[in-house]
């Protein structure tokens, strides 16, 4: 009933009870009061504004501090009485709270340990206590059944043999399985090199660019599967993060990689080089450039030499034919013609001085008027002695006498074809010549006779684009090279004798050995095929000496030499010895690579030619020069 303004009168009120009941006291944490009294007034908490210093002072000064606890229900400090402290001590020791409780009271036996004559209870024993249990019986029978059926097995005796023993005590060679001989043992891991060291020599460390390159490579392509690194001391070396990976990969290799014995080629590369006779022993052959014939302004396509070896004729894209003296490189004569000169051929008969020149659709027969006056005079006479036959035969071409103007230049006869002519070649006797027309019909190859001035078409059917033709030097054979084959015709019997497979894509040129048994074929796929006509229809050897397409090939008349000129600007002179003995195969040895021509328009050497008597070779190039190598 007193107003709770002062703490003193409220003190007796407070310890009556707290009025909030058994609720969590945190609910009143933030309020200054705890509950309400009967009048509905707030019951305030005792004021607690002690800071730590106060607490400490109290701890130091108050002798009863240790027995003061805070009552959470009211918030007041309570000093414990002696009994209460005693109780706490007892509880802490695990004793009973009640002082007067005696835990060790004397035990009283309700039943004596002596056996009495009367039972304590007079209840008769259960029936089940003397009848065998059905459930147990069932269980036992189940077990018995399981044992019978072998479901339950007795415990195995502990295996007391040692885990490790001398496995290889009796090594019996007979017991080795047969398959073990086939076994390929796994190759061992590669041993580490200097670069794997934790402190490698400085040259093994990767530079920045190398490191970048290493990172960009595929993991499988890398030469090293780690980046070499340098650490100053052993303590600084970290664990290798891919260690487990590497072991795992090794495991995978061991059981997933197919194993094979690979034969490693262990040869000295020098042994691979075939033993050839030394070029020095195969002399003479042209070795150095001796002369350069200048004068043409465009590519020189074709070359031919007089049978005496004194004069050289060359045809060029600048629409001229030039006659040169071989020894002095002097241009003796220039013959302007109507078009590009595709081919020139000097009559091989030394008594006739006549040159066949292919210009566009016609073949010009020119008397160069060089050398012995008697000789070229005789040639003119021979040409003039022609008598027109009575009945005119139908000819595939027209034979026209040259006009006076042309006569003065040296042109004697013009054989006019229907299409452009691309090659002309003389027969060894010098009376017949063959011309190749770039046409697709059967009129591609024509054979002309100069003395009778008439022409014939030997083939009834076209067998493909004819590249070049050739007369056999001795026998009446005629060689026709199409793109991939060389056909050999017998002119007397008028039949096909042989068909040579060149194994090339596109034959460009062809030359025959003066003996007549061997042919070489140059092709645009930079191969040179040597045929032995006695041997087979396939090349005896396919030489791949040049880097680029072959344009011209040539045989020497007397020396065992042949040469090939190619677009890579080189002329390769080879020794090609043909033996009279049929059992001995021809011996082919390259002896010299001649360089000199300058590449122009991707073209190098266009034609090669041997001097008829000397071991000299001429080559005409796309740079407008003709070079003589001696």
């Amino acid at each position, binding site marked *: 009933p007193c107003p709770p303004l002062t703490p003193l009168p409220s003190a007796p009120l407070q310890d009556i009870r707290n009025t909030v009941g058994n609720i969590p006291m945190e609910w009143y944490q933030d309020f200054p009061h705890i509950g309400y009294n009967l009048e509905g007034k707030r019951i305030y908490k005792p004021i607690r504004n002690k800071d730590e210093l106060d607490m400490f002072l109290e701890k130091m000064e108050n002798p009863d501090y240790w027995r003061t606890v805070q009552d959470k229900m009211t918030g007041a400090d309570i000093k414990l009485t002696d009994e209460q402290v005693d109780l706490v001590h007892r509880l802490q020791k695990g004793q009973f709270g009640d002082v007067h409780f005696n835990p060790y009271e004397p035990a009283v036996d309700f039943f004596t340990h002596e056996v009495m004559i009367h039972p304590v209870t007079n209840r008769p024993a259960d029936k089940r206590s003397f009848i065998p249990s059905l459930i147990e019986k069932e269980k036992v029978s189940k077990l018995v059944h399981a044992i019978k059926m072998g479901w339950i097995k007795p*415990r195995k005796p502990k295996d007391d043999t040692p885990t*490790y023993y*001398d*496995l*290889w005590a009796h*090594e019996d060679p007979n017991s*080795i399985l047969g398959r*073990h001989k086939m076994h390929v*043992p*796994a190759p*061992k*891991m590669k*041993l*580490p*090199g*200097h670069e*794997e*060291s*934790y*402190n*490698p*020599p*400085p*040259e*093994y460390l990767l530079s920045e660019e190398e490191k970048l390159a290493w990172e960009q490579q595929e993991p499988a392509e890398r030469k090293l599967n*780690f980046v070499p690194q340098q*650490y100053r*001391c*052993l*303590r600084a*070396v970290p*664990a*290798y*993060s891919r260690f*487990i990976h590497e*072991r*795992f990969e090794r*495991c995978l290799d*061991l*059981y*997933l*990689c*197919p194993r*094979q014995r690979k034969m490693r*080629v262990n*040869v000295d*590369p020098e042994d*691979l*080089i075939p033993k*050839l006779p*030394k*070029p020095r022993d195969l002399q003479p052959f042209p070795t150095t*450039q*001796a002369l350069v014939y*200048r004068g043409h302004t465009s590519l020189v396509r074709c070359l031919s030499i007089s049978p005496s070896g004194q004069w050289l004729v060359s045809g060029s894209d600048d629409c001229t034919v030039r006659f040169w003296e071989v020894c002095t*490189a002097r241009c003796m004569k220039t013959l302007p013609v109507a078009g590009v000169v595709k081919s020139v051929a000097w009559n091989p008969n030394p008594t006739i001085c006549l040159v066949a020149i292919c210009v566009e659709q016609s073949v010009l027969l020119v008397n160069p008027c060089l050398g012995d006056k008697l000789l070229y005079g005789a040639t003119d006479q021979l040409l003039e002695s022609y008598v027109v036959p009575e009945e005119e035969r139908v000819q595939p071409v027209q034979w026209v006498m040259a006009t006076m103007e042309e006569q003065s230049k040296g042109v004697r006869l013009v054989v006019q074809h229907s299409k452009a002519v691309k090659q002309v070649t003389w027969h060894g006797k010098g009376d017949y010549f063959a011309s190749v027309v770039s046409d697709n019909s059967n009129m591609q190859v024509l054979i002309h006779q100069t003395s009778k001035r008439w022409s014939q078409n030997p083939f009834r059917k076209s067998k493909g684009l004819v590249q070049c033709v050739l007369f056999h030097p001795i026998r009446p054979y005629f060689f026709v090279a199409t793109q991939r084959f060389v056909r050999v015709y017998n002119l007397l019997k008028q039949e096909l004798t042989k068909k040579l497979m060149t194994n090339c894509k596109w034959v460009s040129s062809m030359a025959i050995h003066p003996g007549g048994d061997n042919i070489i074929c140059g092709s645009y796929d930079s191969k040179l095929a040597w045929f032995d006509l006695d041997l087979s229809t396939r090349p005896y050897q396919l*030489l*791949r000496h040049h880097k680029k397409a072959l344009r011209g090939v040539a045989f020497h008349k007397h020396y065992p030499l042949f040469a090939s000129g190619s677009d890579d600007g080189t002329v390769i002179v080879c020794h090609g010895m043909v033996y009279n003995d049929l059992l001995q195969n021809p011996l082919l040895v390259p002896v010299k*690579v001649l360089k*000199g021509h300058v590449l122009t328009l991707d073209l190098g050497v266009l034609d090669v030619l041997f001097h008829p008597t000397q071991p000299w070779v001429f080559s005409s190039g796309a740079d407008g020069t003709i070079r003589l190598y001696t």
Partner: protein
Amino acid sequence: RRLCILKGIYPHEPKHKKKVNKGSTAARTFYLLKDIKFLLHEPIVNKFREYKVFVRKLRKAYGKSEWSTVDRLKDNKPSYKLDHIVKERYPTFVDALRDLDDALSMCFLFSTFPRTGKCHVQTIQLCRRLAVEFLNYVIASRSLRKVFLSIKGIYYQAEVLGQLVTWITPYPFAHDHPTDVDYRVMATFTEFYTTLLGFVNFRLYHSLNLLYPPKIDGQADAELKPTEGKEYAMDSESYLEKLSALSASLARVVAPTHEDEVEMDEFPVEGETAEQMDTRKKEQEALEKHKKLFEGLRFFLNREVPREPLAFIIRCFGGQVSWDKSLCIGATYDVSDPSITHQIVDRPRVEQQVVGRYYLQPQWVFDSVNAKLCLPVADYFPGVLLPPHLSPFVTEQEGDYVPPEKLKLLAMQRGENPDEESEEEDEEEEEEEDNNDKEEEEEEDESEKEDEMKLKKMEEQKTQSNKALPVKVTAGKLRLEDRQRLEQEQQSEEKRLAIMMMKKREKYLYKKIMFGKKRKVREVNKLAAKRKAHDTALKEEKKKSKKIRRA
């Protein structure tokens, strides 16, 4: 798969892949039918089946929580042994030794795995035991030959009964377990390898008259007893640890008698000259000397140094080793022991240096072992920039790049004084070599060039004559023709011509070989150039620092 691993069956590459693969060229693995049939005859297949059934039953019992059944099943757990497979795969002991590399590497790896997860604890313990046993054997037989600290781990090479066995141990750090690794495959391999290694160890121990399982020598054991008695309760555990301390020698079945070391009688083999005998004898002597490299030296390992590898190596070469007592059991003497000759330290500076012992970095031990001699200690003092650590497994053939340090080392092995002169000589030699190389390269070009030059000159002359210019007669210069040069040119040309005549296949082969050679030369040159650049840079730096000092 497991069977293939255990039996060592590997796939085969068919001769006609398309034919076998029914026309498709997809990558597939092919096994020989014979191999698979061979697998089917293996008795262990039945054991595997039994085990599978057992696991199924056990799972079922667990699911029904029939604990008695679980107990019963566990009691009858089927077990299998791989002994016969080991015997079958390695019919002779030498075969087994030859294939020991992978087994050892795998066991050492597994023994460093944590005891949780990944694989069975028993496997790890077994691996550890076998690895330690093997190390002890190597110590007892002193068969270690080479060691190499790489960034991947430490390589060891030992010569066990004439076979070189190489293995790698990872650095003792926790593993970063990758997720893309199939641990089951590795575990299967390890299962086989542990069996193999156990038998090999047994045989090896018996070949040295040692007890297997290994027992520490009684005397040493007594010394160790008081130290370990308190700290380790479990005797079995401490036993392995003691063994792995590698500090005590092993007990022998028969007490070692000194008569064993009587010199071997010499049996002259027919067809062997005295020189060969001599060389062999010398080799033998060198080997003996190598084995006793650290004899009489007493090492102390500081606590920052990897204890196990170093203790292993030093003991292998006859040295005595100890470490801090708190680091591991088995320490035989203390830091303060005055008889210590070398203390291995891996920190930049050592305070309180004791007089009378060398303080060295651990690389000294490794380099000395590889060099087969105790290297000069000056390069290996703590805090000093170490010389490069070279791989002992590289034997340089002719034409290979040889680092200058290796040259120095070789000179030292030959017994020459590694003075500065030799260094200079080396450098000079290198330079000469470089020059030679360049000359050779140039020669070919030059020959061609000269030809061209000649031609050009001639042409010029001709043109001059053609044009009929006022002819001047000048005194011709005497051209000295180098005969050798000419000869060489001729030879090279001959060679080139001969190469032209090669057959296609041979030419291909020849070109390939030559390409490989050239690549090798290129690599060597690159390394040499790098080294040179590095050296010059170093020199310049030195000069600069000198200048600075002067200034």
